């Protein structure tokens, strides 16, 4: 039985309080009027008045990375000119200043959403991993069931917060919610059958209900199995898991379209849902490994051997490559086809977020592949922890890059709202998961595969 240590509990509460203060600060300090924006822009002009003029988007720069890589002068500028998603006109703003105002007002929403979704997707990904273990009747993993259930206890608060953010984020976050914009936009009118506010909320409610109901019943059945002398509870869990996986794969795709792809409602990519899933899944497995190492170091789970850690590290390794594969597949098709509506998505990310964009590839692909390639290293806890830190930071940046370029554009900055949001949700995550782990014994008694799992050897 695990109890969240007092120090850790205090630490998480401090994080929550600090984070909450920072988030509120972020919301309160956004500019309210166009005059405020003009003042900010004048200040920026004063700082580096030589390169930028008010046209923004890096139009003034003659040599930039995209043009250079394309071997074509003025390429990115031409492409961006046609991108209504990312241009002032696209958001129905009357002037450039108003556009910047909207972007700055959206920034605290975006910062909170990125961190909220990052921690929610970890809980959701663990729930999917858990369902896969049941549906495939895996023999190696039952010793980890209580750990996974502990992490998924964050799903309920996490998903509710994410849902509230996407519902209240407003028209500058999701441009298709702006009726004036839709009235002048043929593409958005065609999409209105799916992208409309009531249906958007209904879908969100369905996702939340489906995921949380499965989490509630699977946890209840799993606990009931510990006191049972037959396998009825296990069989119920098997069926529930199979249906949940079907439900999840459908709702995950629409969730990715709803919450991320509709940030730029003209742009679409058919790979997008899988790509979000890869991010979710690799972060989730990484967190399972981290929590396992933590509990193991406290001597609470003697029945988990380094073989289990080895398998988790293999999954981290494999899904890091899987993520890269999907990322690259999406990138290469868009790069190769070079259709103006599509390339703008990557042009803004490469131009305005170059370090993050390429740094993310190193963190999410090169480091995990080098650190975790050797079979023996996968059993060394501190090696796995190093790889886990790379992967988690990398995938936070990944979510950051999904949201920020679309909502805040080139007015992004990694400041108080972003850091505070991470602190708040990290604190909440530690508190909820720590409490969730502590409720019952960490050894799932009477599971049909527990014996096999404890003797797991390869």
């Amino acid at each position, binding site marked *: 039985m695990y109890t969240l240590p007092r120090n850790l509990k205090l630490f998480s509460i401090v994080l929550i309080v600090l984070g909450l203060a920072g988030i509120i600060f972020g919301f309160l300090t956004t500019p309210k009027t166009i005059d405020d924006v003009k003042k900010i822009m004048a200040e920026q002009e004063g700082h580096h008045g030589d390169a930028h003029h008010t046209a923004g988007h890096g139009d003034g720069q003659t040599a930039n990375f995209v043009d250079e*890589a*394309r*071997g*074509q002068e003025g390429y990115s500028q031409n492409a961006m000119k046609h991108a209504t998603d990312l241009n002032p006109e696209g958001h129905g703003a009357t002037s450039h200043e108003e556009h910047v105002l909207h972007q700055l007002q959206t920034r605290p929403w975006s910062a909170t959403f990125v961190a909220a979704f990052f921690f929610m997707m970890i809980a959701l990904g663990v729930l999917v991993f858990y369902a896969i273990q049941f549906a495939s009747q895996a023999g190696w993993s039952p010793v980890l069931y209580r750990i996974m259930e502990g992490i998924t206890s964050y799903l309920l608060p996490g998903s509710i917060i994410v849902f509230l953010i996407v519902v209240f984020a407003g028209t500058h976050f999701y441009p298709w919610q702006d009726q004036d914009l839709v009235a002048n936009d043929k593409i958005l009118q065609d999409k209105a059958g799916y992208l409309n506010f009531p249906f958007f909320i209904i879908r969100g409610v369905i996702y939340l209900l489906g995921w949380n109901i499965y989490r509630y019943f699977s946890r209840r059945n799993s606990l009931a199995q510990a006191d049972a002398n037959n396998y009825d509870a296990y069989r119920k869990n098997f069926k529930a898991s199979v249906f949940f996986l079907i439900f999840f794969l459908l709702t995950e795709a629409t969730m990715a379209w709803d919450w991320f792809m509709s940030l730029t409602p003209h742009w679409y990519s058919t790979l997008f849902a899988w790509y979000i899933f890869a991010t979710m899944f690799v972060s989730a497995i990484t967190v399972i490994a981290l929590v396992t190492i933590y509990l193991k170091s406290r001597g609470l789970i003697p029945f988990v051997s380094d073989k289990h850690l080895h398998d988790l590290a293999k999954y981290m390794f494999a899904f890091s490559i899987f993520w890269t594969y999907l990322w*690259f597949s999406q*990138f*290469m098709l868009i*790069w*190769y086809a*070079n259709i103006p509506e599509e390339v703008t998505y990557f042009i803004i990310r490469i131009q305005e977020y170059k370090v993050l964009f390429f740094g993310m590839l190193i963190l999410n692909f090169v480091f995990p592949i080098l650190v975790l*390639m*050797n*079979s023996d290293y996968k059993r060394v806890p501190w090696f796995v922890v190093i790889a886990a830190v790379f992967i988690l930071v990398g995938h936070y940046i990944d979510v950051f890059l999904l949201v920020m370029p679309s909502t805040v554009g080139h007015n992004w900055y990694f400041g108080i709202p972003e850091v505070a949001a991470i602190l708040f949700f990290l604190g909440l995550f530690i508190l909820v998961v720590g409490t969730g782990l502590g409720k019952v014994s960490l050894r799932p008694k009477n599971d049909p595969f527990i014996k096999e799992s404890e003797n797991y*050897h*390869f």
Partner: protein
Amino acid sequence: MAATKIYAIYKDDDLLMQAVKQTRSANYHISEVFTPFPVHGLDHAVGIAPTRIAITAFLYGLVGLSVAVAMMNFMMIQDWPQNIGGKPSFTFYQNMPAFIPIMFELTVFFAGHLMVITFYMRSKLWPFKKAENPDPRTTDDHFLMEVDAENHDLEMLTKFLYDTGASEISLIEKEEDH
């Protein structure tokens, strides 16, 4: 030079595993084991050094990657640049996204094939090689353990092996070709 060996035959893989462990702990030397299928953990029990094929696989992968880069740089950039879909074709890095699938494929191709060839060479396998298998039943459902019998009391060793569960034991004078 002739070597004296004892062939002990077992009918079950669990029994074999147990016998291997007992034989080793009694300080007899097992020179070879023949089984109809890979027995899990047997290599560790017999005391064979862990395989180094993973290291060779990594190195072969690097060779494949280098070959891919050199090949495409020569063909597509230096020797005969082509305009494919308006893509820039005058430097390697401008065109790299299109090359990555080939870099990946050749890495896997080199690692896979060279690893298999290395494995054949290392286990001295080649076409038309005569099987070294001492007893054809080890390709069906019997397990054979080959124990060095030199410098040992044969009677004691035989009795010991029967006690480990061997169903047949035979003494062999083996011509060794080294």
